[in-house]
């Protein structure tokens, strides 16, 4: 057992870190928040493609790099450090992986190289009007009519829906209120009957409500098997969740670094506030949580890469990383005193994202339910 990064991983990390330092400044993030229609930058997306990142998990035979989830975690943690706004997670992790796992040979041959080349961007249309993230709660209906499907319903929190080319939609085709009876469809974003509404968030990012009104999609939009959407989606979703944890852990580490730096410099009562034990206690507690979340995330990625049953680990990683990022953004901001809440202060970019990250992709309660299913309802998992 050895948890040092491999040379390749260390190199990837360094390249990513340098790229982000150069191209993803606070000014850039603010510009994406305020001025950009899309909320991300197409130029940067092209650069991601040139570096091969967009195909990091895509098999080599489809032009990708065929790297592991653990490698991807190393990369995306650097994006997270810089809270880089991009559709990377849902395009290059989630969509690329579902297509690679359950797509037909034709779909793989056509769609994967497009992802690698940066030609197609995917958005994930899953969440509906539910506090949880359960497949049972999906109601958007896809009715088969001839060799087409007709979609009616609403999706919420679809990130980058306006900039995307394709929506990865989880739709109800069978039994209601069940994990079964869901189907995955790849829907052209420009199909007639689709309309979007921006959902304003604390992060000032680009989340949308996407309404489907008699949207007709061809039979070829079917990804995987009819009514088996959840089985197809869940393993890839776990990978995306772990990648998201890496992203939020990265953001947490960065914010913690700013707070630590400030604690060394800000003087009150004749000494740096970082010399006061209460402040030290906060910072020490948070760094432990961050290390824990980070290790748990990498450990889960490792288990997934080995093809092992990792649902419990993923759930623990997500529940813990979520709580950690929420806590770290909140308490680190307090270390900045009043300045921590001023619009001009750059750390507020992190504060505005912390809670939202915590609640995204299934909040803590949802994942705690998954942990409970794994440790209570399945055979006792021997914690190793």
């Amino acid at each position: 057992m050895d948890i040092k990064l491999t040379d390749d991983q260390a190199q990837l990390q360094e390249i990513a870190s340098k790229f982000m330092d150069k191209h993803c400044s606070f000014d850039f993030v603010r510009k994406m928040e305020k001025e950009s229609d899309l909320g991300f930058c197409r130029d940067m997306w092209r650069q991601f493609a040139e570096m091969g990142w967009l195909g990091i998990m895509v098999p080599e035979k489809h032009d990708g790099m065929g790297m592991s989830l653990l490698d991807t975690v190393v990369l995306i943690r650097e994006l997270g450090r810089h809270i880089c706004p991009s559709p990377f997670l849902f395009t290059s992790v989630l969509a690329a992986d579902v297509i690679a796992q359950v797509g037909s040979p034709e779909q793989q041959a056509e769609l994967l190289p497009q992802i690698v080349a940066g030609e197609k961007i995917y958005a994930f249309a899953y969440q509906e009007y539910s506090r949880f993230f359960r497949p049972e709660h999906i109601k958007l209906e896809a009715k088969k009519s001839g060799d087409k499907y007709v979609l009616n319903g609403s999706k919420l929190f679809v990130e980058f829906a306006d900039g995307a080319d394709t929506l990865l939609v989880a739709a109800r085709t069978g039994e209601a209120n069940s994990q079964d009876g869901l189907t995955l469809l790849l829907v052209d974003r420009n199909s007639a009957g689709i309309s979007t509404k921006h959902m304003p968030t604390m992060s000032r990012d680009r989340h949308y409500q996407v309404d489907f009104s008699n949207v007709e999609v061809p039979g070829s939009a079917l990804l995987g098997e009819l009514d088996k959407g959840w089985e197809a989606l869940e393993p890839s979703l776990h990978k995306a969740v772990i990648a998201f944890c890496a992203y939020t852990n990265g953001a947490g580490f960065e914010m913690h670094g700013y707070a630590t730096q400030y604690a060394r410099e800000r003087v009150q009562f004749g000494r740096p506030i970082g010399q006061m034990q209460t402040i030290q206690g906060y910072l020490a507690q948070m760094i432990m949580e961050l290390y824990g979340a980070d290790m748990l995330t990498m450990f889960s990625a490792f288990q997934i890469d080995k093809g092992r049953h990792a649902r419990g680990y993923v759930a623990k990683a997500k529940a813990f990383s979520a709580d950690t990022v929420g806590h770290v953004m909140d308490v680190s901001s307090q270390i900045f005193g009043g300045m921590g809440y001023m619009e001009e202060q750059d750390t507020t970019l992190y504060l505005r994202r912390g809670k939202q990250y915590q609640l995204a992709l299934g909040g803590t309660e949802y994942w705690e339910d998954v942990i409970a299913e794994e440790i209570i309802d399945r055979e006792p998992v021997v914690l190793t």
Partner: protein
Amino acid sequence: MDFDWSPEEIAFREEVREFIRTEMTDAVKGSIFIDTPARVEFVTKMARRGWLGMGFPEQYGGSPNPFPLAQFILNAELDRSGAPIIGKNVGTIASTIYHVASEEMKMEFLPMIFRNEGQWAITYTEPNAGTDLGSLQCRAIDMGDHFEVTGMKHYITSAHFCRWHWMALRTDPDAPKHKGISIFIVDHDTPGLSLSPMSTIGREGTTHRTNQVFFDKMKIPRSRLVGEVNKGFYYMMEALDYERFAILSFASRVRRYTKIVNWYKNADFNGERPINDPYTRRALARMAARVEVGTMLERMAICKAQYEVPAVEAAMNKAWGATIGDEFAQLALDLMGPFGGLWGGEHSPFGGGLADEHLMAGHARVAAGGVDTSKAIIARRLLGLPNALGKPELPQR
């Protein structure tokens, strides 16, 4: 990055498990704070396999280290099954002797420790020197060929059955407080040394007994001074880095967690099944994640230990482990409703064992460099923040 154990690590773990299966009896199980003939015998059997001296040179009775993580695997398996772990004798005492003591002292004591002959007490704490060990007052006056000691220590575990004391005493009252302490090895039978028992709130046979130790003109031969005079504080601090890590393997916490989950799954109070209650399910789930984080921080510490003393990681291990131990004991009792308060008897889950654990759980947050002290170490050594107890250190511009 490889989170899996290697084949040789797995083979060694199997060997340890097999040993535990054969040698472990109920009499061996128990707390790390007490020792019984059965526990001593069990450790001696490990000593015969060379497991106590792993990584120390053979001339001192050591044995080759099969691979860097062997000692950790051994301790984790022992801890998992409630057996005595390779704790302070090797982690604190033998390590320090090996690094700082004279050749003569090494030859005298190291083989003895590795054969598990003679038990040890760590004799540091005084009424006015607990967390702040540097301010200990009990004097050892230099009389030339010996030192003379009058004073007392308290909370000294194992003193009532030990053969030797690993003792910190003040040798220079005029030097700055951290620079006037020395370590001695003291024979428990030395004239002038006496004991008085102290009881903890744990039950008899668990963590019940500890001791006050008194010295009246006790003479310590000069040859029993460890390393250099007045360097004792630094020896203690370095050893604590090892001890935080060695004594607090996370495995026993995982074992307790698994035990409570099994109880929870089967619990049935006149038809009311806890497993159907979403609130406690989530509370257990939340704890599962926190326990898993403990195993992760431990992995981080042991992987680092392959290259250097994992001081910061050990402090994290200590702080997280003690915090989780305390939270877990609370949760376990909460899950049981009023039955959590039972200290034995018919309706008491685990015969009151978890109540015992709860009673002493807070102590782990305080002992051996507690949670707060560990956080101070993290703040200073990892985050580079100035010492909270020192003079103001203004930032350089």
